[in-house]
């Protein structure tokens, strides 16, 4: 009897917590996204609440509308933010992969004695504040910043490059901040890989490059996929990087949501943006979760 209760508590306590602090808030966001904006506090008209009972709720359900979503669709600002977020996230994911794969590959090929140190060096920045790491780039990228100073001194350019407050800076920021997320899953698949597979391919007539594509790269696909999703998903909703490194022309949905909420106090539109963002991300998130579950099963 005792055993049954303790067993159940192990599940019930975190379950209830997550239901209340994770799932319920989403329901609320959805509800507000479907409500009308009214100025006041809180700045939305509650469309229905449980206290009213079923009848009233049913009646009010009829009043729910997709007005806010219509508004999102009608204003090109929102559509452009979504598209530009996806575009920026997509290209920065590819850039991160281009930088991250060779790094992961080099690490996996390193002498086994120094591999744990290299691994720690990749993880360490992850423990360091995201904000600080983004902030560090401002001093480097700005007009009179260190990068321009260096390039001018080397004589590579005559006039300082304009990087900060453009999308270029946003790309750099995303690649930089999310690089460890790309490197770690790729590294772990490459590190586990049996080197004799590459040798077998070579033995059976592959050139060095052929063996790389047919065996190494092919077997690293799960790691590459996990890495890309780990970069792409949060990058789409990124706020700090476009806000600090991007310019007024940088449109990203996380930033738009923030502006709607904090500057325009439009809670319903902010909620509608959040819902659409979630819908956009649902496919990659489900992909990621499946991969996670599969990895957990495989580890069993």
């Amino acid at each position, binding site marked *: 009897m005792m055993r049954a209760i303790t067993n159940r508590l192990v599940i019930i306590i975190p379950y209830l*917590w997550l239901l209340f602090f994770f799932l319920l808030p*989403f329901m609320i966001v959805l509800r507000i996204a479907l409500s009308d904006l009214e100025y006041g506090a809180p700045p939305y008209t509650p469309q229905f609440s449980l206290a009213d009972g079923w009848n009233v709720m049913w009646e009010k359900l009829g009043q729910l509308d997709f007005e806010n979503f219509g508004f999102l669709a009608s204003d090109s600002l929102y559509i452009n933010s979504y598209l530009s977020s996806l575009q920026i996230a997509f290209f920065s994911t590819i850039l991160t992969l281009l930088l991250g794969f060779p790094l992961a590959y080099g690490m996996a090929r390193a002498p086994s004695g120094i591999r744990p140190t290299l691994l720690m060096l990749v993880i360490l920045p992850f423990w360091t504040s*995201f904000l600080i790491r983004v902030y560090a780039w401002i001093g480097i990228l700005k007009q009179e910043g260190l990068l321009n100073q260096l390039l001018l001194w080397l004589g590579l350019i005559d006039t300082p490059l304009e990087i900060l407050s453009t999308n270029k800076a946003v790309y750099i920021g995303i690649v930089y901040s999310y690089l460890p997320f790309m490197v770690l899953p790729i590294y772990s698949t490459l590190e586990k890989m049996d080197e004799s597979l590459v040798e077998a391919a070579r033995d059976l007539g592959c050139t060095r490059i052929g063996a790389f594509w047919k065996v190494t790269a092919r077997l690293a696909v799960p790691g590459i996929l996990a890495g890309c999703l780990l970069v792409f998903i949060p990058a789409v909703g990124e706020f700090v990087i476009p806000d600090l490194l991007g310019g007024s022309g940088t449109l990203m949905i996380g930033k738009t949501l923030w502006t709607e909420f904090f500057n325009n106090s439009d809670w319903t539109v902010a909620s509608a943006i959040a819902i659409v963002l979630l819908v956009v991300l649902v496919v990659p998130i489900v992909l990621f979760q499946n991969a996670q579950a599969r990895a957990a099963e495989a580890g069993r």
Partner: protein
Amino acid sequence: MTGRWSWFNITSVVVGFTFLYLPIVLLVIFSFNESRLVTVWAGFSTKWYGELFQNQGILDAAWVTIRVALISASVATVLGTLAAVALVRFPRFNGRTVFTGMVYAPLVMPEVITGLSLLLLFVAINFARGFWTVTLAHITFSLCFVAVVVQSRLVSFDKSLEEAAQDLGCPPFQAFMKVTLPVIFPAVISGWMLAFTLSLDDLVIASFTSGPGATTLPMKIYSQVRLGVTPEINAVCTILIAIVTSGVLIATILNKRRNMQHKHN
């Protein structure tokens, strides 16, 4: 994977790590700059650190942040460990799919969404925003990270250890406390450290859920950064980096030493 470490590999590792570390190193160097202009070196000085400790706003924010991080990390570690046990030890229960989804989703959820939704919850239940709302929000998203860290250790835990304890007369709950928990404890500790740093670093969720009188350090830094790069901020960042880095290094070294001892025995 073994083999020769070719020049190509060495180059990509060096380039990768330079990219990862150079910005941080530059930031630390310029926190010791004499000049107010952060990008022009004017000699070594620690004066910005001195000024920092005069800045009451920053000190208050730091104190709030540390309290939030301590409380939220501790609660999240307990809840996250429970969630991990539920995931690993109970392959079948009603609503497991929903549960699994709720544990993994926050790992990749854009922070703006998590922050906004939690804020709307607190408004809906009329909970005064401030220190406690930030803490509750941090518990919620960091418990998922703890769960994942502990889960991966539990999966590889040899269940026959616990069975042996039961065979020797230990009731299941005690067997878990006396055998399983001590073995997975390093994972629980790293889960706590992860939760602590996540809370320490968080800007977005705290901005949404915080209220008057509960400004955290990242919020403070952010509001100053928007106005431009200043040596004081470099100094704050340097201190934070130093704390986190030494924490991680000490943990790694202790872990290594433990492992070495295990090998010796």
